[in-house]
């Protein structure tokens, strides 16, 4: 598979480069490898209009997909947008070039509160924060009442058969760890075992672990309490009835992500990459991205420029904790614990 992928990729690049030379190589280019639907197309078009740099975008839907493609020999990209845990993994693997913050003047716009909590790349020597957020809990208040904004909601038998959690071990175990007062990046096997027991208590009340169809079920009234990303939940819900949703981050805290721009060590268009990153951090542009995603911006001056009310406020993320890379041994342990939960009795 790896070989096939590599060949296909080489062929693709060859095709791209032939195409590139045939239509005049004078134009500057930038190869961006980004999450799907993360940056609105007109923002990219405006960047090209302002700088003349043509952006070629390729997209991925998970960090793992991006990482595996790069490790399998995918090259030719200049910028990737990994989440925190993958930033540290990619630093360790030597995949990232490092960023000179002096070349990103708009870096000053990023909320220092966000920067101070970054454990995966302290001092931002390799990454420039783009967007952050977290999965929370959505409750259909027309159906469910008498709960606290806590992870304990999943223990309530009166919602049995009406609740789902994400099919994602870091999110579910992270929630249980926070509920117990531990870190979402806990490495102690005994504490992880405690967290497993918490999830086993939740499990009988859950319809399923689902990261694909839960938002649709929630919108249809099938599920009353779901764990998931606000953007997924709100997207499916009837706009007029959105006030019915109580979206909250459990008071004990929750796992949180921060996606950052990184320049790859093999990048060929470094100047263009810096221009792009700085452009994305400009308040008006950051505001447009946040409006599009309906997420709060880590970019302080951008917040005043937003025209859409985000699904939650930046301050709501205060109780969150960034997901860090667990290291291979602990990752194995998490996998084992998660497998036991999934396979169950």
């Amino acid at each position: 598979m790896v070989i096939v992928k590599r060949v296909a990729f080489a062929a693709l690049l060859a095709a791209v480069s032939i195409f590139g030379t045939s239509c005049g190589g004078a134009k500057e280019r930038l190869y961006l490898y980004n999450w799907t639907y993360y940056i609105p197309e007109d923002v990219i078009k405006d960047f090209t209009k302002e700088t003349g740099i043509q952006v070629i975008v390729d997209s991925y839907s998970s960090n793992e997909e991006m990482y595996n493609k790069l490790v399998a020999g995918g090259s030719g990209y200049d910028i990737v947008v990994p989440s925190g845990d993958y930033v540290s993994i990619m630093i360790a693997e030597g995949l990232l070039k490092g960023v000179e913050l002096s070349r990103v003047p708009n870096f000053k716009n990023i909320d220092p509160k966000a920067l101070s909590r970054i454990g995966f790349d302290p001092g931002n020597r390799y990454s420039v924060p783009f967007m952050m957020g977290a999965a929370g809990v959505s409750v259909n208040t027309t159906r469910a009442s008498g709960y606290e904004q806590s992870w304990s909601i999943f223990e309530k038998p009166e919602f049995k058969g009406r609740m789902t959690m994400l099919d994602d071990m870091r999110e579910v175990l992270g929630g249980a760890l926070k509920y117990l007062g531990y870190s979402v990046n806990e490495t102690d096997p005994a504490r992880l075992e405690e967290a497993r027991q918490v999830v086993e208590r939740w499990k009988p009340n859950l319809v399923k672990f689902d990261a694909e169809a839960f938002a649709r079920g929630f919108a249809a009234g099938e599920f009353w309490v779901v764990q998931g990303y606000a953007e997924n939940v709100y997207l499916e819900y009837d706009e007029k009835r959105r006030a019915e949703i109580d979206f909250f981050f459990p008071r004990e805290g929750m796992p949180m992500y921060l996606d950052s721009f990184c320049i790859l060590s093999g990048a060929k268009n470094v100047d263009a990459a810096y221009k792009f990153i700085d452009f994305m951090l400009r308040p008006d542009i950051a505001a447009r991205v946040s409006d599009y995603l309906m997420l709060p911006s880590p970019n302080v001056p951008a917040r005043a420029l937003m025209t859409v009310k985000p699904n939650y406020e930046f301050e709501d993320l205060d109780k969150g904790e960034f997901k860090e890379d667990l290291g291979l041994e602990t990752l194995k342990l998490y996998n084992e614990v998660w497998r036991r939960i999934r396979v169950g009795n």
Partner: protein
Amino acid sequence: MKRGPGGLYAAPSVVWLTVFFIAPLLIIVLYSFMTPGARGGVELKPTLDAYRAIANPVFARVTFNTILVALGSTMITLLIALPCGYYMARSSKQTLLLLLVIIPFWTNFLIRIYAWIAILGNEGFLNDLLRALGLAQDSIRFLYNRWAVMLVLVYTYLPYAILPLFSTIDKFDFSLLEAARDLGATKLGAINKVLLPNIRGGILTAFLFTFIPIFGAYAVPLLVGGTESYMLGNLIADELTKSRNWPLASAISLVITLVTTIGVMLLLRANGTNVLGGGGGKEESEGKAGKLDALAGAAVVGTAAVVGAAAPAGGGR
């Protein structure tokens, strides 16, 4: 025997099989003996770790669950398909009935699953109807359990069972049933002693065509299953895309492939002696063709499970 250019005609299918079936299968075999890469992929260090990991009782539980669901839904499918096939063979509107069996294939498989979700959901059509009739107060939870998985699996694979049964029963000489009745057999006895033994091949094909894909089911338990409907297909997918243990995923699918292949061979052998004992030349050659089909089918399961698993992954962070 004279050797003409006949062998050349087989070249396209040989190339096809090599590229899309044998080569992937070999990769799975190779990967299953390697060390898992740090974050997916494999390292070229040979080890038996993956096979040791299969000894974990967790896997036995999933396997048991999968066999239960697969056998149960296959049996139900066959019980429904048999009378359908029989009725179609005897009907004067065969073309229309055949068309009706095939029509569901015009709609994408996933869309049909979502249709079932719309029907069976707590707020779905069926519950609405029951509430309107006053038969249910709140709502009955039809979805997200093992029964829902079996129902949708039966629905999905029913045509695969009906078609081979129909084609076998269609070739059956129905005057034999009359003869049996003349010789004093009851209606049921005639079917039991004359019809069923004669369409054995069709039943076997129908069984294999349903059991094998159901055994590797992935999307159905994922979408309509609950927390307890975890099947081997889901396990392979999760090992591949979430736990990132490619050798383990390969080893599991390889073991499934081997077990199914051996099972199929035993079944065919048991059936084969019977066909020979019955002494029908035509049936014998059909049996052989069926045997090849079935073997290929069996071996495809594991491969399909692995390849299919990779596609719908993603969405999470």
